[in-house]
């Protein structure tokens, strides 16, 4: 068997073994309930918006229900798999509630089956990335295939940034051959919205090449059709969920901004959360025109995404998966960046939380969960976890900054007239 196929199959095997037994209840629960709604023709944005209004009415502050806040296409990647699950297990609920702060009720033996089937599209996305990378460099494919961080996010957490990774990689790889395809894949990478920061880069690069720009925009526009549909069908809901929530949410995550979690004053926190927005805008305005047109696309994409990782106000643990394939392809970047978000996962969420499908199988395990949770909450309440979380956040920001500097320096060297001199100093 050729090495490329062997790596893909091994990557598949590792993921299939883990997938049925772990999950992030909140995120997998969101995909599960959204798939049910989509299959039944219901509008998930209306559901999320209604819950948000309910929460805001109860709390009297601008809190948001954290449910399905993604591109509408996303749910349709899961719906066929959920439908497949209903053919096996029927339509009775298998995972009941699970949105923070509730814990889900899980129904056996169907929960592991549901988890395996719902994670199949994520696993497929991972495998396509591995396959594409293996066609370029086997060593890099192996790194992605067996990176503990990628495996954790995709099959233990059950988060789908692998979709963003595969579509962003495809957009980059097809850019030299077909602008329409590149635009189409870029549009698909917006399943998690944060790659929107790359749009100015693509536009600036194609500016003046009108035919190429039109092709790109044509491919991109295709992916926006579902958004257009929901904007017509339920404008207030989708606007509130995608724009108001995503645009005005509280800063934090694996970055230097998570200190804000210590400041328990939401109105103040939301005001402060505008600081990174402003800095990000300024950074994009400076970097995109200066480097975007002349620098190689790979480095340009990474530079813009690194700027987002530095100044974007919300950087969740899983976001780095989206650009890890591109990081691996770049000679300037250090792929070990994943270590910080990987460590952060276990500071923000207790490890046992991901094992609920195992712990919920027996009252004995459940009591273990309760005991461990008391200890965890004591650590949280005392503030012991916030300190390492902040330290890791700052360290990750600095590591991203270091990689960005390397990219900018190499890019500058490549475009500057006296580039040889520049390289010798760097």
């Amino acid at each position, binding site marked *: 068997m050729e090495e490329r196929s062997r790596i893909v199959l091994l990557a598949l095997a590792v993921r299939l073994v883990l997938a049925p037994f772990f999950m992030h209840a909140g995120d997998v629960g969101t995909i599960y309930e959204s798939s049910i709604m989509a299959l039944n023709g219901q509008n998930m944005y209306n559901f999320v918006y209604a819950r948000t209004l309910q929460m805001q009415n109860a709390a009297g502050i601008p809190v948001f229900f954290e449910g399905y806040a993604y591109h509408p296409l996303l749910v349709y990647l899961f719906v066929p798999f959920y439908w497949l699950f209903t053919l096996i297990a029927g339509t009775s609920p298998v995972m009941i509630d699970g949105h923070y702060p509730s814990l889900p009720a899980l129904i056996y033996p169907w929960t592991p089956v549901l988890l395996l089937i719902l994670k199949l599209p994520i696993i497929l996305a991972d495998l396509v990335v591995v396959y594409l990378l293996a066609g370029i460099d086997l060593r890099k494919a192996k790194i992605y295939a067996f990176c503990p961080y990628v495996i954790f996010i995709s099959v233990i957490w059950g988060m789908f940034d692998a979709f963003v990774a595969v579509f962003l990689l495809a957009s980059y790889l097809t850019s030299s051959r077909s602008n329409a395809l590149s635009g189409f894949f870029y549009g698909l990478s917006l399943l998690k919205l944060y790659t929107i920061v790359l749009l100015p880069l693509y536009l600036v690069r194609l500016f003046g090449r009108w035919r190429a720009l039109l092709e790109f925009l044509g491919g991109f526009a295709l992916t926006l059709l579902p958004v257009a549909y929901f904007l017509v069908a339920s404008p207030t809901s989708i606007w509130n969920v995608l724009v108001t929530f995503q645009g005005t949410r509280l800063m934090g995550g694996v970055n230097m901004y998570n*200190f804000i979690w210590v400041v328990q004053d*939401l109105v103040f926190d939301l005001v402060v959360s505008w600081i990174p927005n402003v800095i990000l805008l300024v950074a994009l305005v400076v970097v995109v025109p200066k480097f975007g047109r002349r620098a190689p696309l790979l480095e340009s994409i990474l530079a813009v995404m690194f700027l987002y990782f530095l100044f974007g106000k919300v950087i969740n643990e899983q976001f780095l998966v989206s650009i890890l394939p591109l990081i691996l392809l770049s000679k300037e970047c250090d792929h070990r960046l994943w270590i910080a978000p990987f460590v952060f996962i276990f500071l923000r969420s207790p490890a046992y939380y991901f094992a609920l499908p195992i712990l919920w199988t027996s009252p004995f395990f459940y009591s273990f969960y309760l005991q461990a949770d008391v200890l965890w909450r004591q650590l949280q309440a005392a*503030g012991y976890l916030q300190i390492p979380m*902040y330290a890791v956040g700052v360290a990750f920001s600095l590591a991203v900054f270091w990689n960005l500097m390397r990219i900018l320096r190499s890019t500058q060297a490549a475009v500057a007239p006296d580039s040889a001199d520049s390289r010798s100093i*760097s």
Partner: protein
Amino acid sequence: MTSGERGLKLKGSLTVFFAIYIIALSFIPILHDTFLTQARWAGYGTGAYQYQNQHYFILFNDPYDGSSKPHIHVNPDFAPASRVSLLEFSDWTSWVDDHNLFNEFNVTIRTNPQSLDVTYARPQIVLHKFVEASPDSVKVSFRCDREFKAHLEIWRWVMTSINGMTVKDVPKPLSIAPTTLIEFTFSDDRLQSLGQGSIVLSALPAEMKIWPHEKGFNKITIDFVNSEMSFTVSGSMSSVGIPSLIWSYAMLPSVLPLVAISVVLLYLLVDKYGRTLKNRAAGPSS
């Protein structure tokens, strides 16, 4: 100046900017706590509220949790950053007109400069719970436009005495003569200190009961029928020993700048040291 020199200078400037940016941001929590948090209600999380003045820290939990409604803490004069639990009102274990306050009412929370206004609504009744803090006390009031029957439970783990009685005197739950003044004592091992607190009721209740639990009393239950009732809670602590260095969540804002400075310094050292190694490897030509 060559482009290489320009690049190096740019990198240096960006590094300085970024280091200052990180460190400056890390001071936001302490600036907030110093200038903005005193004596006002601040909402956060999924709808919880907190209030801090010189003597009291009050937590009112979000609508999805029936505990701490509110939970009143005292800040001892000798350890102002410490928050010692004084009393907790619980909606989990309180009933109005035989309906549980947490499970059987729709709750909405609003604030005004003076108080937290929590509205409990059911088809037959709308009840307000107000929480007002002053430098000396915290007042929790229940108001309704008609008379209502209430069973409230007020918790502390644990009170060493209530109105002069200890668990030695009261081994089983005991109904005490209704009164408008409840005085209790407690101790805090971490701070090596003794505390005293009081609850002043605005009217005589129908029934009062104190509940022993191992080393002290852990709750006081109060039943009343009225259209309004307020509980004015106050407390203080005095040190009897030398407390060891106590860590408290309230100290986090002071620690974050230290963390930021340490991590940034480490980065700068590694960056500089790494370059020195590279320069050494490159030899004198660099």
